[in-house]
């Protein structure tokens, strides 16, 4: 049983690490701001979820698991919000989704 939990935990941790890596790669290599935000938000949601689930399996049924769950909930609420705020701020500042700067006034009040 312990071995099974260990294997599951390691699979989750490795997958989470892979998602963080892909997210980081995307944040570096994607062509424009919005796609980069999209890639970066992957690390905060999928990556964090898998890594924390992996650590929770390691921690077992203890107080640490509840704390990790609280952290996960906090991350799941805040990271997508931060990505959304970043994208709205970029749109308001006049960065168009196709990557070219706006010629006249940006779309306000989106």
């Amino acid at each position, binding site marked *: 049983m312990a071995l099974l939990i260990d294997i599951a935990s390691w699979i989750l941790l490795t997958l989470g690490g892979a998602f963080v890596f892909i997210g980081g790669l995307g944040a570096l290599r994607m062509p424009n701001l919005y796609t980069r935000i999209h890639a970066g938000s992957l690390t905060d949601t999928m990556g964090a979820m898998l890594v924390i689930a992996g650590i929770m399996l390691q921690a077992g049924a203890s107080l640490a698991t509840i704390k990790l769950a609280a952290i996960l909930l906090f991350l799941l*609420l805040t990271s997508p*919000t931060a990505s959304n*705020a970043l994208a*709205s701020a970029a749109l308001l500042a006049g960065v168009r989704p196709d990557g070219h700067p706006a010629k006249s006034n940006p779309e306000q009040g989106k």
Partner: protein
Amino acid sequence: MTVLFGVFLLTLLVITALAIVRTRHLFVAVILTSIFSLLMAANFFLLDAADVALTEAAIGAGISTVLFLSALALTGEHERATTMNRMLPLAVVAVITLIMIYATFDKPRFGDPEAPVHQHVAPWYIEKTPEFIDIPNVVTAVLGSFRGYDTLGEVFVVFTAGIGVLFLFSARPSNRRNVKRRVRTEPGQGLRHYLVPRVVGRLLIPFILLFGLYVQFHGEYGPGGGFQAGAMVAAAIILYALLEGETQALRALPLHTLTGLVAGGALLFGGVGVAGILLGSNFLDYSVLAADPIAGQHLGLLLIEAGVGITVTGVLLSVFHAFAARGRV
């Protein structure tokens, strides 16, 4: 493993520091400073200094970034090109670096239990804290009771700094044209039209406040205390100000209340010290505050931590509001 993590974090620190020096864009520099503080906090945590790590994360990475950004909103985002000769600063830095590297030759090995710092007064504190104060967190015992004078000094440094900033901002700007208007939305309205951050932010504020109170009153038993809690409570209210607008935040906590908090916290700390004298002992000796010396120590620590938290919250919020009010001129 710890050493490996330490080297990794320190390498990232050096890279971040170089990036801060190289960038000309002040906004980027501010965000990098925040990352620097976060890395530093992780580093402190790795060295088992949880209290310092919490302070660095709350104040260094959190609040100071917000204050830097408010300052940037008043100035420009680009660093002015320097005309100074660069050879002299380079020489000074090179000489200091050489001296510091030379100084490290005399330092004890990393984590050496025989190092002077672990042999001087630390064993005494660890041995006597259960006897005199009886709380699990030795850091709080040292900070609040054994070295209460130092903490009193720190609180007054925070207090003085806050007053200094408020004085600077109370002067009217002489040259209006230099003050750029960067606020696009209605002044004092905050992010009312951004639905997602507003909903999620409002949901989180009570929990941030709750966590701040936990850190405040759990300081005797775990990492935390007035400085960290003050920063967290201030962060929650700054978040409220960003979401709902300055006006709403000032309605919840008016400026004169903030001034009262700034002075009241420092006064509470000093008052606890004076109470020690009046009850027939030394300044900042909490043992006489209750019939039982240990209960007195607990009461004293609770009160002075509250004083620290109140002053830190008041100063951070006053400074934030001072920056924000200047931006509206």
